[in-house]
């Protein structure tokens, strides 16, 4: 029997509440939220790949691609319009993942994981060594404009509104894709590729498409982060950045397109508090949180919500 799907109304309500909250939250919370949404967009793409049974440890490549696309366009061509820059970031993330996908789509397991990391470290090396790309110092972004208007005093709020709306659109699009025929067929790839092939679907092509989609989302995440931070540097492409995205995916779970947003917010809160109160030991706090999540919530934080709704115990919906 078909069951009613309330995901899209839920996304809309959550986004509306977040927008209302934006008008009362202090600037530093808005800034943290923007950074969290930037990460959540990357994790949204990771969720898709995770469901296919692959764990990329190089998603920072496309994240940095989006960020640098935004930064370089402003730096060299003076383009500051948020909509043009967003489209460029998506194109750069998608373009890079389309190229890497020709190779990545052929591999599974540890080979896929390490190959994706290798690609991101190549970009990191190029960024560090190239003066025109800002080298180790990176590049400062020009102030973003919205259709010619430059938000000055309300900059964080404007960026927050943009990030929430973009996050909402991306979550809805990902949900629609996951419910579509190719989206649903992506899940059983992890269980039986041979059967998928004999159902008339090319697994390699499907994986390539999913990699491109994840790359586009990572590029958008890079753009949101760059807009908010106002600076891009090679750290965006470093493997620890990719590790952070994997961390959030484990913490959040892959049971819903809303999980990455929940996971990214919790991750930023833990990191910020740990960094503020125990600056010398913040990594231990983060590592401890990850261990607790793996031991007690193997399906991630979303499994708590799934359990509350009477879903499967591990919060996985496949």
């Amino acid at each position, binding site marked *: *029997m*078909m069951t009613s799907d309330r995901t899209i109304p839920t996304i809309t309500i959550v986004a509306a509440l977040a927008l209302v909250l934006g008008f009362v939250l202090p600037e530093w919370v808005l800034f943290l939220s923007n950074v969290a949404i930037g990460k959540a967009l990357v994790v949204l793409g990771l969720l898709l790949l995770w469901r296919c049974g692959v764990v990329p440890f190089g998603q920072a490549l496309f994240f940095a691609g989006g960020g640098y696309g935004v930064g370089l366009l402003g730096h060299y061509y003076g383009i500051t319009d948020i909509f043009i820059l967003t489209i460029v970031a998506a194109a750069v993330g998608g373009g890079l993942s389309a190229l890497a996908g020709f190779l990545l789509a052929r591999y599974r397991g540890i080979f896929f994981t390490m190959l994706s990391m290798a690609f991101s470290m190549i970009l990191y090396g190029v960024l560090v060594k190239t003066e025109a790309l800002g080298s180790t110092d990176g590049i400062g972004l020009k102030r973003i404009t919205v259709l010619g208007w430059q938000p000055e005093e309300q900059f964080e709020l404007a960026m927050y509104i943009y990030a929430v709306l973009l996050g909402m659109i991306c979550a809805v699009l990902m949900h*629609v*894709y996951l*419910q*579509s*025929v*190719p*989206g*649903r*067929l992506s899940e*059983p790839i992890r*269980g*039986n590729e*041979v*059967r*998928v*092939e*004999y*159902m*008339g*679907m*090319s697994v390699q092509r499907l994986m390539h498409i999913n990699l491109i989609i994840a790359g586009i989302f990572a590029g958008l995440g890079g753009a949101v982060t760059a807009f908010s931070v106002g600076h891009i540097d090679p750290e965006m492409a470093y493997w620890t950045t990719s590790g952070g995205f994997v961390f959030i995916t484990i913490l959040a779970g892959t049971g819903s397109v809303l999980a990455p947003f929940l996971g990214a917010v919790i991750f930023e809160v833990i990191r910020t508090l740990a960094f503020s109160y125990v600056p010398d030991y913040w990594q231990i706090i983060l590592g401890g949180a990850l261990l607790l999540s793996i031991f007690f919530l193997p399906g991630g934080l979303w499994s708590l919500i799934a359990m509350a709704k009477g879903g499967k115990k591990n919060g996985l919906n*496949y």
Partner: protein
Amino acid sequence: MDSIIEITNLEKSFGSVVAARDINLKVSAGQVIGIIGANGAGKTTFVNMVTGYLKPSSGEIRYQGRDITGLAPEELTRIGLTRSFQIAQVFPALNTRDNVLMAVGATDKFRGRTRFLEPLSTPERYAKTARILEEYDLGSHALQIAGELPQGLRKLLDIAMAVASEPSVILLDEPTSGVSVSAKFETMDKIIGALKANEITALFVEHDMDIVARYADRVLAFVDGTIIADGTPDHVFSDIRVRELIVGEVIERAKADREEDNA
């Protein structure tokens, strides 16, 4: 009658080992063909080559007049030639209904019957899935997790998923292996009945000669990678080489199966 499949000089070698050689065959639409042979005779290699799982070393396979030699499984499925497996290939974490629903959705996708980003779960697809499940007597197991189904039902599910791709030809690799001796005829009744009702040409690999004699219009006997006898069941089973090289061995195997089943 025009041939739906025409195979010429098909050969497959793995290094110095020749697994299939000199296979020549014409299959007419609507036929049900039993493939017999001892273990290692080349039956599964033959099925794997025709269905794109293995690339032949030489030779040609034509389907509806088109050269399909070496085409990938997904391309063959799209043009109407598919298979089931000796070890049932299902999605073990999904329930029986969703397994078939996936196959129905994939078929709609490659036949261009879906709109961009249309959801998989539509009332039409659920209805079609329910029809297929009923046809293969899987309706009462619709919500059971496929990985927990008994072997016989998993084999039926495997075949139901293959049939969901609306093929003209299906190759079944040992459809009753793992099914208890007492349930073999019942299982084959369902499979062959459904295939005939849908006018699907079938080639099935089988070790049980009673099954072959009862369901096949034509029998191919494989020995050492090639076909040594081809004809009606009576004709092939009366061939002295078949009796010496295949039937004797499978009678022993059938006895062992029955003893295992009784135990």
